[in-house]
Each structure stands twice: as C-alpha cells, then as structure tokens.
C-alpha cells in the first residue's frame, strides 16, 4: 500500500476508530494509543489483507482485540450472567434528553455501560454496523450481539437518565448583586 492509499485509509477510519476506542478505554490518552497501535499493526501486518474492502472491519476488529489484550490480566471481569438485565424502556422524553445534553455527556453515559455491551453498542451507533457486521468484528455469535444490543441500550438509557437528572440538580448561577431575574 503506498503512502497516499495509507493516508486515505487513516483519514477514512481514524475518527470513528478513536470514538470506538474512547468508548472502550474511557480516556482520551488510552484511546489515542489504541488507534495508533491499530494503525501500527496495519502497517506491519494489515497491508497483506487481500481485500481492501475489508480494511475497515479489520481495523475495528484489531482495535478491539488490542483493547482486550491490553487490559490488565487481574482486572475484575464481570460475567454476563451477573449483569443486571436493564429493563429501561425508551420514553418520549429520552429523545429530548439526548438532544439537550452535549456529546461528551452522551459518551460518558456510553462509557458507563458494562464493557461487554459497550463494544457492540458503539459499533452500532458510531459505525452504523449491522448486527452481523458487529458479530464478525468482535467475534461473538449473532444472537449474543442482539442480546447485548438490547441490554446495552437499556443500560445506556438508564445512564443517560442519570446523567440528565444529575445535571438538573446543578444550582443556577447566582444573580449578581442587586440584579433580579427577568
């Protein structure tokens, strides 16, 4: 792959890869490292990929694997069976809530979702991937993806609701001396 093609590959994918990494790693520094590492691996391995049409999928899969590999071995992982089911149904006000809050708060809510749900959820939202594509990318069965999307969305709605309710508790900025609220 020549430099121009590589630059095009980077330009087409680094932003969504970063957002995916940010949702997984939960901080900008580690997310940046993950993206750089992913392209580094591409530079050393991925150019051998015969079908460039699969480059995007390859990059997301590689980033996800690097994330899993880089996690501390002793980190406590939660069995899916232990996770709460997440029953929050979408309500009309949920849509307004998302529209009102800024993108960083939505990302923070996504980062609060259990890790097993976060990867499929992010690929669904950011990359607009189908459930089949998500299953291939993170290497889990299709049924598992559907289950994780369903439960992950419920968790996300709860996290967004908490985000919205905590922001509503912020006290209004005090009026300057003598000024009256209009």
């Amino acid at each position, binding site marked *: 792959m020549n430099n121009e093609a590589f630059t095009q590959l*980077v330009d087409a994918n680094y932003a969504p890869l*970063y957002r995916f990494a940010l949702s997984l790693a939960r901080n900008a520094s580690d997310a940046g490292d993950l993206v750089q590492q992913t392209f580094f691996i591409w530079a050393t391995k991925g150019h051998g990929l015969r079908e460039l049409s699969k480059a995007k999928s390859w990059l997301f899969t590689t980033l996800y694997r690097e994330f899993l590999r880089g996690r501390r071995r002793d980190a406590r992982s939660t069995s899916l069976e232990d996770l709460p089911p997440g029953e929050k149904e979408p309500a009309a006000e949920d849509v307004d809530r998302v529209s009102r809050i800024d993108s960083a708060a939505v990302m923070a809510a996504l980062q609060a979702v259990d890790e097993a749900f976060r990867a499929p959820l992010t690929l669904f939202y950011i990359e607009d991937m189908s459930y089949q594509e998500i299953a291939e990318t993170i290497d889990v069965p299709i049924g598992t993806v559907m289950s994780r999307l369903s439960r992950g969305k419920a968790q996300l709605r709860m996290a967004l609701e908490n985000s919205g309710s905590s922001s509503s508790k912020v006290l209004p900025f005090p009026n300057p001396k003598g000024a009256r609220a209009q």
Partner: protein
Amino acid sequence: MTTQEAKFILSAFRPNGSDTSNPAFAGALQAAAGDPLLGEWFARSRAHDAAVAAKLGEIAVPAGLRGAILAGARVSARPRRIGFGFAWAAGFAAAAALAFVVVTMRAPVRAEGVSAAFAGFAIGDVVNGKHGGTGEPSGALVASLQAKGSPMPGPDRIDFDKLRDTGCRTLSFAGHDVIEVCFLRDGTLFHLYVYRSDGPSGDFAAKGPSFIARAAGAAAVWSDRKFDYAVATSAGVDALRRLF
C-alpha cells in the same frame, strides 16, 4: 412472535433503515406495524438511537492524532514483497536487519520501520498522552537526565523492573511494555521512553540516535543490545540535539 421477542429483534434495527429489507427483521417489523403500542415503542427507540448516534458522531478527535498515526505507522508500512528469490538475494546483513521485525511483528517491513514507528509513538504520546502518572519517578535516573551535559542512558543505567514500578507511566507499543520517564533539562520538558529490545535489529541507527521531526514534536530514537529508546519533546528537534 411475542411483543418482547419483537422488541429484542428490533433493538438491532439500525435507525437509518438499512435493515428494512433484511428478512431477519420482517416478522418483527410486521408485528410493529400491526400493534400500535409496539409501533410507538419502535418509533421512540429509533428516534432515540438516531439522537445518540448523532451525538456520538460529534465527539471531537484530538488534533494531533492523525499526524501521530501518519508519523508513526506510515513510515513502517512500506511492505517488502518477498518473492522466491529473496532468500538467496538477501545477504546476511539484510537478514539480520529483518530478524527483529520478523520476530516481533511476523511480517516484513522496511528496516527503518520500527525505529520510525517508535519515534511516531513517542511524539504522539507527548502530544496526546496524559503525563504524570501516580508512580514516583526513579530519582537517580531523573537526576542524571536533568543534569546538564549528562549523556542519554544506556543499559547500565536502566533497571527496567524498577522503572516499571517507579517511572511516570507504563504504556504499550507493538506488544512491548514501554516505560516513560519525564525530565526537565534547561527548562525544557522531555519524555524518555524505554522498552526491552528483542535483540540487535539493525533497524535503529547503529551509531548515535536518529532524529525525527514532525509538526507536533520531535523524537530521537536509538537502541542498544538490551533496550530501545526514544526521547521526545514538543520543543523541537534542536532542543533534542542538545541532549546528545
């Protein structure tokens, strides 16, 4: 199909409608069309998904990230196509030069790839990293790094395991643990990155460091038998040259 089953399936339906023609959704879509309550739920769910997707698409990417990727990875990306004649055509020196990358990356790259990628990694971390970890920097090493005229470290001054516990941060580069140690010299902040070398590679410059300058910063990379090193700063390559 029960309502719960339909909701379960429709949770995977993309908000832009790309899945409309997917037969896997046909039953659930039909159920939503025939059940006003389920239909309302589905409409709300799609609107919510669309709103979340739009917000996440607004997340800004760090300004230096693209440059750091290109600085690091692109230089190492140039593949060498190995034909049947490679084995006899390549001399011992070339084989030795490639040994490191073959072992560590399991794919052939140009000889200068790893050092340039490491330099790009270091520059990228200077720009994007959150520096100042919780560990106390190793005092003796930092003191010597900060002393004017002191040479950059070699294997005799690196206790990798100790640094892992007391360095600024531990990062990851190409499957290696990289220790970062931050130091000030002449008022300029530098970041030293060290990882255990996989052995002599010929990739890093044999004599002295190689300097790589990018818009976001500069790095010097070198290696010895035990470790590969990079020193990076946002102060420019001239500041780096004064270290050596």
